[in-house]
């Protein structure tokens, strides 16, 4: 009797469930898959030959290299900073902690264009440090260092923000246990803390990397748009697009999309390789905070 009721309950729930799934798939298709397909379709509109000619353009290649270089500097920098900041915030109590949390969020709150302008203000020829830099022949603005700085600024919060809740949920017990067993701080970090946060960390790196490669506004302000020298991929796409060179624009855009897809594939591959870690992270959530007596 009860079982039959339960079954009919499940039956009633089914249309709702189907509706939800259909809605999710529809939106996914409309807003994610369709644009992605459009990029590749437009890029290949004039044939594979035109596509490869567009990609082989030296300026296009220079933009790819620059984008990868910038990401390769910005992501590790924010990785180190993000872990350090999250560690400090989650595991220690100190004066000014809330200020630090707010500061980390600043790049999210500030428009990227403003972020770019900050660096012009600081390092531009009429900026605070402009005179000093000119005397010593150091170029920051309209050069690679400026682009790197702007990218680091914009991607600052991603990893720290991802890690803080993970580390807070896990508490200090594991680290304190490791120390009591004679591990050094360094051993504790590598053998206990890092494995505990690896999935949160990886997700943060992924987001940070995607943004670092895709950032437009801040980079646009400091780059100076010098073809083959200071154009990152998003900037190069815009220039080509503004020149009505749609095939080339979408060809470079498709490369950018491919890079993004590659990071996703990399993440899935790692998850697939180490399935035991996926369930190993979950129990952290049901841990209650230690009673402070």
């Amino acid at each position, binding site marked *: 009797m009860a079982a039959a009721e339960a079954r009919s309950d499940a039956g009633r729930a089914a249309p709702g469930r189907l509706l939800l799934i259909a809605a999710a798939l529809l939106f996914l298709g409309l807003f994610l898959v369709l644009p992605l397909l459009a990029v590749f379709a437009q890029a290949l509109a004039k044939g594979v030959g035109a596509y490869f000619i567009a990609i082989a353009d030296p300026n296009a290649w220079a933009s790819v290299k620059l984008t990868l270089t910038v990401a390769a500097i910005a992501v590790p920098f924010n990785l180190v900073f993000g872990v350090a900041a999250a560690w400090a915030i989650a595991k220690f109590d100190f004066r000014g902690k809330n200020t630090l949390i707010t500061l980390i969020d600043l790049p999210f709150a500030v428009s990227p264009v403003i972020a770019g302008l900050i660096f012009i203000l600081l390092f531009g020829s009429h900026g605070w440090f402009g005179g000093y830099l000119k005397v010593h022949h150091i170029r920051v603005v309209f050069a690679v260092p400026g682009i790197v700085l702007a990218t680091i600024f914009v991607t600052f919060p991603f990893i720290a923000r991802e890690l803080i809740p993970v580390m807070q949920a896990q508490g200090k*017990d*594991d680290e*304190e*246990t*490791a*120390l*009591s*067993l*004679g*591990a*050094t701080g360094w*051993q504790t970090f590598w*053998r*206990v803390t890092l*494995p*505990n946060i690896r999935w949160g960390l990886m997700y943060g790196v992924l987001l940070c990397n995607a943004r670092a490669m895709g950032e437009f506004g801040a980079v646009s302000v400091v780059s100076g748009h010098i073809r083959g020298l200071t154009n990152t991929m998003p900037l190069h796409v815009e220039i080509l697009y503004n020149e009505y060179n749609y095939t080339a624009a979408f060809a470079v855009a498709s490369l950018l999309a491919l890079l993004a897809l590659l990071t996703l594939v990399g993440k899935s591959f790692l998850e697939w390789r180490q399935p*035991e*870690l996926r*369930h*190993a*992270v*979950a*129990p*952290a959530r049901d*841990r*209650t905070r*230690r*009673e*402070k*007596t």
Partner: protein
Amino acid sequence: MSIALRGIGKQFGEFAAVKDIDLDVPTGALIALLGPSGCGKTTLLRIIAGLDAPDEGQVLFDGRDATLWPIRDRNVGFVFQHYALFRHMSVFENVAFGLKVKPRRERPSSADIRRKVQSLLELVQLDWAGDRYPAQLSGGQRQRVALARALAVDPGVLLLDEPFGALDSQVRHELRRWLRRLHDELHFTSIFVTHDQQEAIEVADTIVVLNRGRIEQCGDPGEVYDLPTSAFVHRFLGQVNELPVQLRDGRAYLGPIDISPAADVRTGDSNNIALIRPHEIEIGAEGTGWPATVIAVRVIGPIVRLELSAQGLPANELLEAEISRERYEAERFGIGQTVGLRFRRWQVYPASGAAA
């Protein structure tokens, strides 16, 4: 390893977690720090471990000042209430952790590590679980892994923070007895924190009762239970009935029962209360003592608990008495029946101190 605390104090902001703690833990002792939540017991344990630094006072390990030693130099094993097992490591790797992080000069060979971990897993009856991950074990099994892991580095002292607090009562009971046996076999010094008086009495050689950051009483379980030095300890270790002591014509009464001349009644002080444990109340036939009505009867295995409304007390202040099952079967006190109460034992405290 023997441990001594000298004048330990620790503040968290305005709140004094512990104050003026002096305590000696001889080598091989099994000590319980017992108290309600917020009494400072965990703070004290963390100070001994080196996880928190005291604001004042000294921690002595074998007579040497260890107050400023970092935790990894103290040679203590610490077991958390929620086990704190490393989730990404197998049970074997968890237990081996303390051996594997040793500097190369002191690190045993991998064959020795394997042998030692295996023997520890046998000791905690988990030798079959070496390849499992913590998520695949039950709470009791996880806590035993945590114990084996702490014992792997041959700690001078084992510190346990509410070690059985997260387990259900059956497993808790089993683990308590097991810990006691283990201690008797291996003779390590251990200090454990608990808010469960039953657990402290069952496991420890010595119970240290803490209240509001201070030591209320320290003694063996029988002493602390039978001869509490304060109303707080009396209340905390088991159930109590509280009755006001009434003074009439220079004599002291509990209801109609004359308890003078009791040495501990300061007849000049009119605000005294008497604490009586449920099993110290004797129930007889009507007319044999303080008249009372039986309100409720509950049979709990070998004992029977009765709630009684004594004549002259407010209706909502019920007395609780416990008698043996055998006695209950013989007498058959029923609800509504009038009986006579007498007290086998009681202890009188000033009411002001009792409020603490």
